[in-house]
């Protein structure tokens, strides 16, 4: 089972867990399995084309999947997957009207 590090933003979807384990062969199936276990994650992570949103990075161990094989990047038993969304800090900004 691969270990997935859940960023703070998504922890309300995982019942507060910062690390979860998922059994999957590649990133595509891993994110699918993750969304089945914790509904709502895929919507936060993926765009309309099923690709990882451009303000989120997914790493297998130390490397970002766009530098590997993207959604088809294989995932091994002991791999560590990190989901890293952009963070800004404190300001509350108004939505463009």
């Amino acid at each position, binding site marked *: 089972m691969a270990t997935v590090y859940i960023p703070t933003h998504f922890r309300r979807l995982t019942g507060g867990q910062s690390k979860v384990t998922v059994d999957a062969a590649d990133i595509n199936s891993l994110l699918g399995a993750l969304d089945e276990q914790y509904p709502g994650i895929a919507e936060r992570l993926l765009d309309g084309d099923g690709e990882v949103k451009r303000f989120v990075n997914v790493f297998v161990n130390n490397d970002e999947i766009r530098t590997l094989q993207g959604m088809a990047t294989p995932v091994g038993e002991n791999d560590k997957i990190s989901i890293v969304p952009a963070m800004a800090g404190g*300001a509350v900004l108004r939505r463009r009207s």
Partner: protein
Amino acid sequence: MARLNRDQLLALARREITEISPQALQQRTAAGESFTLIDIRERDEFMLGHIPDAEFIPRGFLELQIEQAVFDRTAPVVIYCAGGVRSVLAARNLKEMGYENVYSLSGGFSGWVNAGYEFTVPTVLNDEQRIRYSRHTLLPELREAGQIKLLESKVLLIGAGGLGSPAAMYLAAAGVGTLGIVDFDDVDVSNLQRQLLHGTKDVGRPKVESAADRLHDINPDVNVVAYREPITSVNALDIIKDYDVVLNGSDNFPTRYLVNDACHFLGKPLVDASIFMFEGQVTVYQPAVPELGIEGGPCYRCLYPDPPPPGEVPSCAEAGVLGVLPGIVGSLQAVEAIKLLVGFGEPLVGRLLMIDTLDQSFRTLSIHRDPNCPLCGSQPTVTKLIDYEQFCGLPSNNGHEPVLAIG
């Protein structure tokens, strides 16, 4: 044991070591040979002038400190004093320590100057500074030369809030000569849980003013330049151009993209960090500067080509932040700035440090330059500063209205 007088000892030493003339040293250096020059005179002699790039190790400390200056026993080392006498005896001791290619400069510093070669009058720490920075100058990575570099350096802090507070205080204490601070906010009671630059008595004051007071109290050597204005596409290049390193402590996406782009255009290293609840990220965006042989690494846009739509990523103002967290993350930014300024260690270029204070984990992920990056890729589409509020899907203010808080 043979009894030697001073002249006999010198004659013996001269037979055992090789002397090099200023002319030969100059010619061999010009021909591409590399020598480590060690100036073994007393401090007051060194302060009046020395050969450029010479390392200062007074005679009394030579054997104790030479291994920090010259690790490789086969490296060519030239020892010099004022006239070439003390250096003969000193070189003999280094030979005894196993240094195979030690030379004594014949005629010493006087010979060098009389031959008409260039010399440098060093900037040195004054008596108060030597005590103040003694724990720095003891470190082989800094020594006095590194401390002087800090005193001559300029760092710009974007924001005097959670991240800017510890970063500015440590950089001031470290003796960074000029600290620029951009922040147009006033101190609010809700800032005090994490923004240690400001105290209860400062509530209602402009942050740049209370920051300047605190920093001058820590270290009167530091020149604080206050910019009580928002950083915008209009003023960013003008403000940033005079600084050596920029520390980003901003709290919103438009400012992050703006500062990233401006630092890229000016070739300035950007120590970036962000925090949220219990989590932090730190990295260094080092633009490529081919003229200086700097290869550079990824930029913010390589990592995050598009900003999240407004509202998709919650802010600290909505979700909260552990007050200690910016203390840790901002301090790490200060470490990176000092390393970049002095030039030691490995900067966090191409590496993203992830900090989670809940399980107290520090993890480093590799990040790469994106060849298709709109800013630093091979065919850039962002070639000047743009309207960043619009880019982030926020009401456009043409860079004039201070709608962006920093904290």
